[in-house]
């Protein structure tokens, strides 16, 4: 049923790891046995332009693209990209903005993408080990530790945000 589809948009700027974050989320959902589709536009993304990626999962998914105004979650990696991407979010949808996590406590600033996935993970029913496996699958071994640590920090921040 289409109404069981979870729609996520990940947005940011080229070089911030938007596409990697989308890959990790999609992989976690895939490993959980869901029907998944991941869409993205990449072409000029290396040159610092805006990048968004769509991840949709559920029982039955057709289009790989999230419809404007129908995203359940909007994860944004760059503060300046929040306003223009709001149109994706449905009424009552959850915005996960970059300031949800305190960048200064991350082991490496480049892991902000994974930290924000940590926040998102609090809202989704995908097992933590699936997330961890997906993170390892999409990062070079020497970055595993920093990313897994950032993911945990993101989860903690997510629990605080959700509780608040």
């Amino acid at each position, binding site marked *: 049923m*289409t109404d069981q589809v979870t729609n996520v948009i990940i947005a940011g*700027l*080229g070089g911030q790891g938007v596409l990697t974050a989308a*890959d990790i989320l*999609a*992989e976690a959902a*895939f490993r959980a046995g869901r*029907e*998944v*589709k*991941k*869409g*993205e*536009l*990449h*072409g*000029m*993304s*290396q*040159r*610092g*332009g*805006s990048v968004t990626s769509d991840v949709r999962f559920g029982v039955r998914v*057709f*289009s*790989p*693209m999230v*419809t*404007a105004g129908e995203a359940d979650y909007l994860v944004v990696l760059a503060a*300046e*990209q929040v306003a*223009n*991407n709001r*149109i*994706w979010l449905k009424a009552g949808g959850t915005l996960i903005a970059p300031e949800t996590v305190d960048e200064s406590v991350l082991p490496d600033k480049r892991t902000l993408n994974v930290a924000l996935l940590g926040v998102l993970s609090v809202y989704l029913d995908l097992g933590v080990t699936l997330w961890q496996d997906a993170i390892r699958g999409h990062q070079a071994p020497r970055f595993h530790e920093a990313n897994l640590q950032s993911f945990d920090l993101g989860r903690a921040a997510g629990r605080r945000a959700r509780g608040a």
Partner: protein
Amino acid sequence: MAKEERLFLSGNEAVALAARRAGVALGAGYPGTPSTEILERFSDLGGCAQWSPNEKVAFEVALGAAFGGARAVVTMKHVGLNVAADPFFTAAYTGVSGALVVVSADDPGLASSQNEQDNRRYAVAAGVPMLEPADSQDAFDYFLAAIELSERWGLPVLLRMTTRVCHSKTVVWPRAAPSPPGVPHFERDIVGRVMIPKYARLAHRRLRRKLAEIAAWNETSPVNNLLAGDQALGLISSGIAFMHAREAAPQAAMLKLGLTYPLPLEQIRRFVAGVDRCLVIEEGEPYLVDALRAAGITVEGKPDVFRFDELNVSRVRKIMAGDVAPEAAAPAERPPQLCPGCPHRAVFETLSKLQCIVAGDIGCYTLGVLPPFEALDTCVCMGASIGVGLGLRHVLPAAQARRVVSVIGDSTFVHSGLTGLVEMIYNPPATGHVLVILDNNTTAMTGLQEHPGTGRTLDHRPTGRVVFEDVARALGLNRVFVVDPLADRAAFEKLIVEGLAAGEPSVVIVRRPCLLIAEKHRERQQAATERSGTE
């Protein structure tokens, strides 16, 4: 039986995997978004893949392999098929002995292209059967179907993909590959393969007979799917548009077309007769609508505003509702920019300062059109910078003509600038000309692919290298210079000033690696050192 695999692949990755499983002996192509990853993945999977100088050469190499009885694939973006159109049309006449799959990756919505041409029209124009996958599963299955069709009818087959099919990842259950490929060997067939008028007349008729047979086969072929539903509304669709339509109207009866040339007209006629209202949901040009109406089948098409840009679920809803109200603007995007420190920057700053009229070309350096440079005056298609610059020089008043410069990237120069260089020598403008070749040692725009000027193969092994200054001098040019504008900006400016004043053709080769390829090379070097250290 082996355990069934469940994979999560992009359409491009699915094509690469299918090609590998089908025993494709050779994959050739030229990079171009959104097609580039097919050959890269095919190579990673152990397939034999190569970048050719351009799509025409790649097509001919793959055609030769298929004449030799092998299974071959050639990949390109939509505009690449314009470059390869010459062999494409006549290969439909000659046919092939093995299999030839031509992958065209179209870009409706212009995510990264200079136009949004719809290559389904090419299938009709050339008489080449065409399959249109809607997701990665289709991409895998249809590639194998294309191999089977190609071998059964001895014709090239067009696998027409689009950006969203190429780059979206979806779940794939790989199916068993068709029978193993035959052993390549040469069999003489002069009448079939040598297209002099006498033999081509026969070939044209043979092609039409084959297409009639394929059309008949397509009436019951497994690649078109009928989905039962409410007969109040029937939808006919293909490619990614099918996915949007299925989501927008899950209750509707649907005919999903996989082999969209030649069309299964009788099956479509029956479908249309069985529903109260029949709407065609297609992205881009009204190809299906026109073809069905020409066959006397009454269907509704989309309002003309939906001819532009890609479709999505909300646009399909609007098509169904006949809603042509102005659409909400897409979210504001920050445009891409030349990387800080990119060697192209120094070039455009100088050309802008000297108030040059710049005939530009396609690559990262096309971004020289944006502020703060605004230093590009034309950009049409790959290689056009040279011809367009020369044409301007021929007709402009001398004072303006002397300011005209052609700027072309290294990969683009090899792709289609060599013949322009010959033109510059053969038909030099009275005021001379200045050709700037931006040699950054890579095809940066499409994601850092090798090309003949880098002297490395698709998988980064050393091979023969085309040295631009040697080529220009060997062709008879006297004024050929190599310069690094980051090391010596003043020297670069001086070369341009002197070139503009010279009154004879000059070539200025700007040699400085792209920042990203320089970093890649360092990483590869380091990985190689680490490997040899552990052995």
